């Protein structure tokens, strides 16, 4: 009898796990269901908090010039490329919890001090691309509108079919977070979110709102187009 013991326990083991196997296979498209989703929410909130702590540490460096990387793909959610009907009427409305709400024209923005950098763009899908960017640091705009101490988040709205993003204020104030009006030495094209888009090397691409229309300082955490559909909210790199 002892000789057979290992075999018996093996058969027993296989018998026990057999009913679970089809369930395990069926689980492949499984997003966790109502039981696990709250667990994911809590762990990912902790990940976000950890990301916010790390954020202050570093700025992105330019990748070496010899690194071969593809050009930036064009992306928007509208059925066709969003283009302003009347570019002269465009304004960037900056408001919410600020002392001096302001509507910036393209000319006023163009006259503000700009910074330039060349950084790697990271898409949540896993690809990268490199482009030189030019824009006004978000912190400069914040200085002009003077946010109230209660402002904790920033909401960025666009004219791309309701696409929007919510950011924590610290990430928005990062020295490399800019409102970009230039790319590749040219004015920002409509293909890439012109006339003005958010850019920063410290966030995944979907956080970088294109076709900007409005910036709102707020004390309530805004969601985001993809974030509301389950993508990470913090998305810090």
């Amino acid at each position: 009898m002892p000789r057979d013991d290992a075999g018996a326990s093996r058969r027993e083991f296989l018998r026990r796990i057999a009913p679970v196997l089809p369930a395990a296979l069926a689980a492949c498209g499984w997003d966790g269901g109502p039981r696990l989703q709250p667990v994911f929410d809590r762990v990912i909130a902790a990940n976000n908090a950890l990301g916010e702590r790390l954020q202050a540490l570093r700025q992105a460096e330019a990748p070496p010039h010899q690194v071969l990387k593809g050009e930036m793909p064009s992306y928007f959610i509208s059925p066709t490329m969003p283009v302003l009907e009347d570019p002269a009427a465009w304004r960037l409305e900056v408001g919410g919890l600020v002392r001096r709400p302001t509507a910036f024209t393209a000319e006023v923005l163009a006259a503000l001090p700009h910074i330039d950098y060349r950084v790697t763009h990271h898409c949540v899908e896993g690809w990268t691309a490199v482009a030189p960017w030019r824009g006004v640091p978000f912190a400069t705009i914040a200085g002009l509108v003077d946010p109230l101490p209660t402002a904790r988040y920033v909401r960025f709205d666009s004219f791309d079919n309701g696409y929007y993003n919510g950011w924590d204020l610290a990430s928005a104030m990062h020295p490399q977070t800019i409102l970009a009006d230039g790319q590749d030495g040219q004015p920002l094209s409509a293909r890439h979110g012109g006339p003005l888009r958010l850019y920063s090397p410290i966030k995944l691409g979907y956080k970088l709102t294109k076709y900007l229309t409005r910036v709102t300082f707020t004390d309530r955490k805004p969601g985001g187009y993809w974030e509301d559909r389950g993508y990470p909210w913090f998305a810090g790199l």
Partner: protein
Amino acid sequence: MSDSSHAEAAAEAPPPVRRRHHGVVRLTHWLNAVFLTGMIASGLQILVAFQHFGSKNAVLGVFNPFDRDRIGQIPEVVRLGGWLAAGLRWHFTLAWPFVLTGLLYAVFLAASGEWRKLVFRPRDLPGALEMVKYYLRIRKDHPPQGKHNPLQKGAYSFAIALGVLSVLTGFAIAKPVQLAPLTALFGGYELARYWHFVSVWCFTLFTLGHVVMVFVADPASLRAIITGRYRGRFPDAP
């Protein structure tokens, strides 16, 4: 029962039952089996969003048998989550218990001294070659061994190294700016992502070999990793 049959039974008696694996080893082994499976399946879900390495129109020239252009999309049956966002939620949730299980195991190995029976060292190389000869039937008799033979030590040490590689490359691609020195260590984001998936291929190969060897070489070890009790032919000494 006659005396002679007694003597026969004694000669053919299986080795006595011994305690082989500590509860921590058994617990972390099976937790790891679950978490690693989940990490790989959700990782494959994330991979299919861009089943290449590099940039969209400048794909890295690395050895990649599982490129989308070669094998098509990785089948849904081995993916977990159903779409990219759900895959990411699984992956970034399971990552923590996966790391904690690995740390618990590492602490146990170090504290118990068990690592001496497990970690492959240069002096194990000749013994590992003897085991290869044995499996290739160049050598007839099984070389004497302790709890694990030198080839097993190599395989288990390799699996532990894979765990370390997968975690470090995982952090490197999750935070390529804030952890830039770590990412640079693996040759930058795109290559770190590549090594992250190389670790998946190696984990899969290791697991296949591991499971085959359990049944071929030492079926009694399956009971040992579940209940801790072992009635196999190999000793417990180092």
